[in-house]
């Protein structure tokens, strides 16, 4: 056999060395790692035993981590016949692994620190830009909620989502406030309507009571009138008889007293006639009346005291009113009588006429004592009187007479200054078309 490993082999040189502990030690020093050798036919530690099946001639080397700190390499050694005989175990510390672990730990700790710091900063920034704003928003909303003051608006400067949210909430508040105002308006209107209806109802009731009172008075009056008229007639006729009997005699005083009797009978009769006006359902008249003519004739027929001056202020060209002349006369003469009685110390009585739309207005004004406000509503009530004279029917009759002719009557007064009664009568055509 040549040095080139060619040609047939002539023999075999076998060299050997004892593989004792010293040798193993020497080898370990050379390899810079502890080495151990185990005979296959002897006892082996458990880790070598467990690795043994995975070692063969084809895979003579295997690795196995022993712990976190060390890793072992196993190699199957053969004898000169190629038979497996030994397992070499080389143990190596796992330095790189440990460094890796350590690095990982440092990295994790670093990451944690950075995370904490970043988190803190983020929280700080969030607190500054969002949370405090949100808290402010929440407080404002809570305040609005507790106070109920929907006119308050949220202030949130900037152009971020929160200011948009505040804007939306302000919009909502606006809408709420609007609804609240609408509701208040409706509620106010409702209250007003209820008040109006209540007042109308009360007025209707008062009117009914007044009408019932009038009807009752009328009924009583009708009965009384008849009962009184017969004795009054007897008194009057007796007075007439005596007057005629005494005529020509010189007893003037007796005659004067008979005249007194007759005058008082007439006064009684007037009261009876006034009372009877309630019993008689008067129908609206159909006469076409010149109201100025009536005013003039009523003033002429009235007996005014010396200290009362009468004046008229009559509008010209007034259309006629459709009414019953006797009712209008009675109403006006009652108003004049009332005015005269309101001026015991004298004064000015003024009657004026004017056209107001579809109505003719007649005003009877005096400069008398006036009516206190609390009594103004009662002047048209039956049997209400502040005067020593009269039974409190004059104005009631005036009102009834005017209203039966489709008119109205109103009173204004100032204590110490005087009173004005305003009568409104429908203009002729208007009344005709009704």
């Amino acid at each position, binding site marked *: 056999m040549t040095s080139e490993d060619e040609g047939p082999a002539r023999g075999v040189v076998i060299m050997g060395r004892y593989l004792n502990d010293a040798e193993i030690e020497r080898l370990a020093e050379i390899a810079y790692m502890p080495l151990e050798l185990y005979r296959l036919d002897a006892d082996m530690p458990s880790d070598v035993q467990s690795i043994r099946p995975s070692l063969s001639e084809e895979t003579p080397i295997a690795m196995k981590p022993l712990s976190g700190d060390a890793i072992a390499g196993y190699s199957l050694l053969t004898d000169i016949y190629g038979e497996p005989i030994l397992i070499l175990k080389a143990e190596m510390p796992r330095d790189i692994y440990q460094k890796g672990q350590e690095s990982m730990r440092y990295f994790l700790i670093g990451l944690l620190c950075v995370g904490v710091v970043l988190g803190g900063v983020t929280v700080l920034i969030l607190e500054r830009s969002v949370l405090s704003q949100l808290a402010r928003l929440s407080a404002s909303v809570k305040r609005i909620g507790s106070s109920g003051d929907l006119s308050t608006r949220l202030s949130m400067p900037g152009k971020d989502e929160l200011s948009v949210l505040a804007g939306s909430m302000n919009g909502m508040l606006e809408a709420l406030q609007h609804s609240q105002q609408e509701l208040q308006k409706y509620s106010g209107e409702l209250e007003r309507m209820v008040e109006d209806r209540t007042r109308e109802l009360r007025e209707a009731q008062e009117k009914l009571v007044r009408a019932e009172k009038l009807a009752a008075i009328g009924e009583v009056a009708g009965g009384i*009138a008849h009962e009184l*008229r*017969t*004795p009054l*007639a*007897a008194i*009057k006729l007796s007075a007439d*008889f005596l007057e005629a009997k005494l005529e020509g005699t010189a007893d003037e005083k007796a005659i004067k007293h008979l005249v007194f009797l007759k005058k008082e009978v007439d006064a009684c009769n007037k009261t009876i*006639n006034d009372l009877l006006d309630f019993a*008689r359902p008067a129908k609206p008249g159909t006469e076409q009346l010149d109201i100025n003519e009536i005013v003039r004739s009523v003033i002429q027929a009235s007996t005014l005291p010396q200290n009362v001056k009468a004046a008229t202020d009559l509008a010209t060209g007034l259309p006629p009113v459709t009414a019953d002349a006797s009712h209008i006369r009675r109403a006006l003469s009652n108003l004049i009588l009332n005015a005269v009685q309101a001026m015991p110390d004298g004064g000015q009585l003024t009657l004026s006429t004017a056209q107001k739309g579809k109505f003719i207005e007649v005003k009877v004004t005096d400069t008398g004592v006036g009516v206190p406000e609390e009594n103004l509503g009662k002047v048209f009530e039956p049997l209400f009187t502040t005067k020593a004279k009269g039974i409190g029917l004059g104005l009631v009759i005036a009102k009834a007479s005017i209203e039966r002719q489709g008119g109205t009557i109103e009173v204004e007064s100032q204590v110490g200054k005087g009173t004005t009664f305003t009568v409104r009568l429908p203009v002729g055509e208007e009344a005709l078309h009704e």
Partner: protein
Amino acid sequence: MNEVNILIVDDDAILCEALSDVVEMKGGYSTERAGTAREALRKAGERFFNVALLDLTLPDMEGIDLLRQLRQLHEAMQIIILTGHTSLEKAAEAVRQGAFACLIKPSSSEEIMGAIQRALAK
């Protein structure tokens, strides 16, 4: 000339008497008084009255009915109603039934005498 007889019918005796005194003194007529319709009818049955003064409300009969019956007895009798009522309907009804006039109490003696004289002149 024949004597003028006036019948006065009213349930108020004093008024009746006062009226009859006035009519007798002022007109010189002779009068009869009746407080009820029955009395009036009886007296009217006994003699003729030129004029009757009637109250419309009598205790035993409505004045209108008495008026009708008196008119049946003596068509020439003139009837003047003297009433305390002011009902136009009643007055109109009385006139429809033949009453000459309708006076409302308390009428003066002049009004009553005037009515009687006009009734007699008819």
